[in-house]
């Protein structure tokens, strides 16, 4: 588990000591009640539909995951071999919780689920992801989605 003492070396030192970017601003967007929010997932697992090209190492791109892609067709193309895949092999929701979000929308806990979700390559400096963030934000605005669940691996 991701308690520091439980992460095997050398991943532990890398996870703790990795340089994290700092930002000049600290935006904080408030919004309506959860029951009125439309939620999109952003996964750092570099997910690809079966048959697609895996993410290149160090890629700063964002790829879209439209609802037309069955979650069970998704593969992890993340560069790191130092995190567990067996959970994902058993249940895609452990990384990409689309079924859970749809259940919560059906129950009225959240207002809705976005038509498009997004994935990027983790272990990549986010400073280079400006264009990716622009594309995600534009698509979310187009769909009326207002809330992002960041699901890192």
């Amino acid at each position: 588990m991701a308690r520091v003492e439980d992460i095997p070396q050398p991943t532990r030192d890398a996870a703790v000591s990795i340089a994290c970017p700092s930002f000049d601003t600290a935006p904080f967007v408030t919004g309506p009640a959860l029951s009125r929010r439309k939620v999109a997932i952003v996964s750092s697992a570099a997910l690809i539909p079966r048959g697609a090209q895996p993410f290149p190492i160090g890629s700063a791109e964002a790829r879209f995951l439209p609802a037309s892609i069955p979650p069970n067709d998704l593969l992890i193309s993340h560069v790191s071999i130092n995190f567990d895949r067996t959970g994902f092999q058993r249940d895609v929701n452990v990384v990409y919780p689309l079924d859970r979000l749809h259940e919560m929308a059906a129950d009225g806990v959240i207002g809705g689920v976005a038509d498009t979700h997004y994935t990027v390559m983790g272990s990549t400096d986010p400073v280079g992801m400006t264009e990716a963030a622009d594309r995600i934000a534009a698509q979310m605005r187009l769909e009326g989605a207002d809330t992002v669940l960041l699901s890192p691996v």
Partner: protein
Amino acid sequence: MLESRGLATVAIAAVRAQAENTRPPRALWTSSQLGRPLGEPGDAAFQRRVLLAALGLLERTDGPVILEEFHDDPPAWTDHPAWVAPRVAMPGTMPDTPSAWADAFAAELRSLTPAWERVQARFGRTTTGLSFLPPTEWPSFVDHCLAGDLPLIDGHATTALGLRFLCDDIKAFYGEAGQAVGPAPSSRQVDTWFWRATIGGALLQALRRTGMESGNNALKTVSGRMFVPAPWVV
């Protein structure tokens, strides 16, 4: 970055130190294993509780920064005593030629294929596929790699990339075969079986050693870093 574009965000934080350093607007730190942000495969109730805790942070107005902890450990962190590893016939001595490796690997793949097919029926999917090669073609490809050739796979520009993704596929195949029946094992149980008790695990170690001695720099790099996780290197 998304928050500055007008979107409210909440992160499930895998490593607390990173969340504290990055200072996102909202984050829920969980004790989930890396690679399982929602915590527990096949446990919708646990996953839903993680999501409710994370999304609930969106209703608070006392940020930034809001960093909260999810206190429950996912159940499958601990080994499951009822899980039984698939039976494979590990030879007493390791193969000593590329073709012998390929033959032993092919035999093991054949013996595990029924379990691998069962798991696809059970969970509705396989997570193999990154290499674009079906399992029946894996032994021949690794035979060439161990022999020092630089074979290519359609769709991957270099041997290094093709072999990198083939190693991911091999690990996925065994991980899935190991979960064909019975309760969810811990990842440690599956890893211990794969890396210490299968030809497939030993093969990846051999590919790593061979690749690191290659004159091809890309192959040398991916072999050292992307075939065998550091805790399992022998």
